[in-house]
């Protein structure tokens, strides 16, 4: 069952590379949150109840509900246009994400570690790099945040991979990162969104010193 969920996570990455609208991205984020919720429920069976509850709250509450809702709110409030604006055509994005997936598979076949469950490694690797690719290839700031959250999901899967000994620290670190990103961006948007109407990263470069 775990493998099924992880493979579905990878398929969501493929779909993300060709999606055209921001709303689709948010729906995929919700789906990824739910998948991670299911995965933690099935993998981490050795933890005590408090820890498990915390983790499930985090995945379900934050990744699946709070963050997408907050993003939606920002998008509506700032009248951000519906299109994700990629630099490269979607077909090339699909090819690149496929290549990332295949390289992850090849790379992981060279690892001889017994304690590492390779499926987790492949999925985590491809998610992280796809998230990075999303940031690099899209113009809008909001897609940067979405890409960042995808990277977070990837790191989460990787931490699941090293077994049930996931320390609280990593968990709290993830939550802190989510907090930090969303908070800063929320402030940023609400303050600056009133002045500059176009949430375009290129305009940020106008803030250079010279």
């Amino acid at each position, binding site marked *: 069952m775990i493998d099924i969920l992880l493979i579905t996570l990878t398929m969501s990455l493929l779909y993300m590379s060709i999606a055209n609208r921001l709303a689709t991205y948010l729906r995929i984020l919700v789906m990824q949150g739910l998948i991670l919720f299911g995965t933690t429920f099935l993998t981490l069976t050795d933890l005590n109840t408090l820890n498990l509850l915390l983790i499930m709250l985090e995945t379900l509450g934050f990744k699946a509900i709070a963050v997408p809702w907050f993003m939606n709110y920002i998008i509506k409030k700032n009248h951000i246009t519906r299109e994700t604006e990629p630099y490269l*055509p979607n*077909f*090339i994005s699909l090819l690149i994400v496929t290549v990332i997936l*295949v390289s992850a*598979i*090849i790379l992981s*076949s060279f690892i001889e570690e017994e304690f590492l469950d390779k499926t987790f490694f492949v999925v985590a690797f491809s998610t992280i790099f796809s998230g990075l690719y999303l940031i690099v290839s899209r113009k809008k700031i909001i897609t940067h945040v979405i890409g960042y959250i995808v990277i977070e999901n990837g790191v989460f899967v990787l931490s699941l991979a090293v077994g049930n000994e996931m320390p609280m620290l990593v968990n709290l670190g993830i939550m802190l990162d989510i907090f930090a990103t969303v908070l800063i961006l929320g402030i940023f948007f609400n303050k600056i969104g009133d002045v500059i109407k176009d949430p375009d990263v290129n305009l940020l470069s106008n803030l250079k010193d010279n």
Partner: protein
Amino acid sequence: MEKLLIELFNLLTLATILSFPFFKIKGKGIISLIAISSQVVLASIVAFSVFLNGPINFSYPGSWVTGVIPMRMDYLSAWFMLVISFTFLTGSWYGFQYMKKYKDQTANLTMHAVALMFAYTTLIDLCIVQNGFVMLVVWEIMALSSFIIVIFEHYKKETLKAGINYLIQSHVGILFLTIAFMWVKIKTGSFDFQAITDFTVSQPAIGGIGLFLCFFVGFGIKAGFVPFHTWLPKAHPAAPAHVSGIMSGVIIKIGIYGILRMLLLIKTDMTVIGYFIVAISVITGIYGVMLAIVQHNFKKLLAYHSIENIGIIGIGIGLGCLGVGFGNQIMTICGFGGALLHTLNHSLFKSLLFYSSGNVYQATHTMDIEKLGGLIKKMPHTSYLFLLGALAICGLPPFNGFVSEFFVYSGLFQALSSDKVVPILFLLFAIIGLSLIGGLALICFTKVFGVVFLGTPRDKQIEVQVPEKSMSYIPLYFVGLMIVLIGVVPFLLAPFLIETIQLYLPSLNFSGYQHLVLMMENLTSIGWYSLGFIALTAALYGLRHLVVSSRKMQEDNTWSCGYIGDTDKMQYTASSFVRSYRKLMEPFLLIRKEKVEASGLYPKAIDQVTHPGDKVEKWLIDKPLTFIRGLLNRFAFLQNGKIQFYILYGIIFIGLVLLLPVIIHQISVWILFLNQL
């Protein structure tokens, strides 16, 4: 006896050339045609006797320079001799008719005939010679004679440029071959090919791989692997049609022969070589066909397709090497079998396609497919033969292209049941590559056939000279017959193929032999099913004909949703056919577009022209050349034309030569002195 035949073969060339001054131009043509035909007969007799009786060895005592010159004809040589001879036969008969319109240029034609005969003789000799030095000499003669037959129309600047590009690149290849042969000679002291085996057996694997890479680059430039392919798309359009067919069908194959021969001789880690060859071949295949799709020059398109097919042959060779490396005999059988069969098949259908393009050129005097159209009504023989070649080159059943591609596919799929992940992924990569190549070839040939032969003429000013002369398509029918035969009854070739494949399986165990027999049975059944397919189509067509002719039938204009405008101009052109493909693959292609936008209320006639370039050529050859030229231009002041300066350079050189040992001696004395301090 065979030794006598081979000597007779070589003497025939010399005798014919010596008799040239006694004939007028038409006589020279007939004499060379008869000579080549008899040479083909001789070569075939020798090849068949090798297949029937076994390998033939003899040797000539060479001089102290070369050592003994052994001549060994084994099954590999015999197979290639047959492939070369058949294409040369059809090529020379077709060429005889093609060259008739140039019969005023007598000196040019004589040179051409001489070079053609030399090319054939040296190609056959290359299959037999097993001495490094002699092989290099014969290879050089072959390169020079192919250069001469390419630049037949040397009064055109483009042809000359293409020919010189070809000459220079061949010599880069010869450089690599020389390095490789000299390496072996220095290490073992002998030019004999056997020494290569002895040398690599005693070396660590890396030495053998390095030697193989040298040979691969040298032969690969001739064969046309990416990134060594840049001479191919220039040389093929420049040459006359029968030469293009011969070059594409045969002269590139001698590179493949070289690689196959070296694979037999070099004993090293075959897995690494196998991965390398498969990787380069998949890239070659996909790149070749990707660029072929956007070309507008008929022959350039076919040239890029040759590159793609060399990629397919390479995939087969790589698969075979992997099989030898892993000890998996199915992979070896299917890989080498597929490669050898595809060599034969490619020479057949590629020469057919090039001869057809020659016919089109003779009729319309243009090679630009955007101007052609509707030729099927005026040149039916050429059109249907081209359709046959196009179906075969896409690898579609029931013709021969499918048989060889199937052979390679079986090997790839059967090898998926190995244990390690990396080979499996590599094989999957090869499978994806091969299927993409097939799909892309489909786009390309539907475009070519549809635009050139179907529809209506796109440029009304092109005059088509009809009717077709009979000699221009009779050799083509001969080739077409072979295509259909190999597709339908491939078991005719099975005994020859089995013998040749077994060269690569030194220790053929029982299960391996079973697999071999099973593969041949598979191929035979494919042949019968192909025949059944043809029969089914014919039967259905007959049924349809009965039904349709009993009902009302009338002819009218093309309906096309009720639009009756100037349909000739509204037809799909080749560029528009591939437009969606071109937009997808834009990062990989180098297309220069000249577009004129419509402006104003009543715009004038506008057009849009695309010029396809080659990215590999731009980055690998043009940019370095420009850089080197820029660098060397800074030294241009040295060549100022005044003879006094040149004499001054000579004086400086002599002075240096005399003084240099003295200076070096002084420096060593001083160093010794400083050391003692």
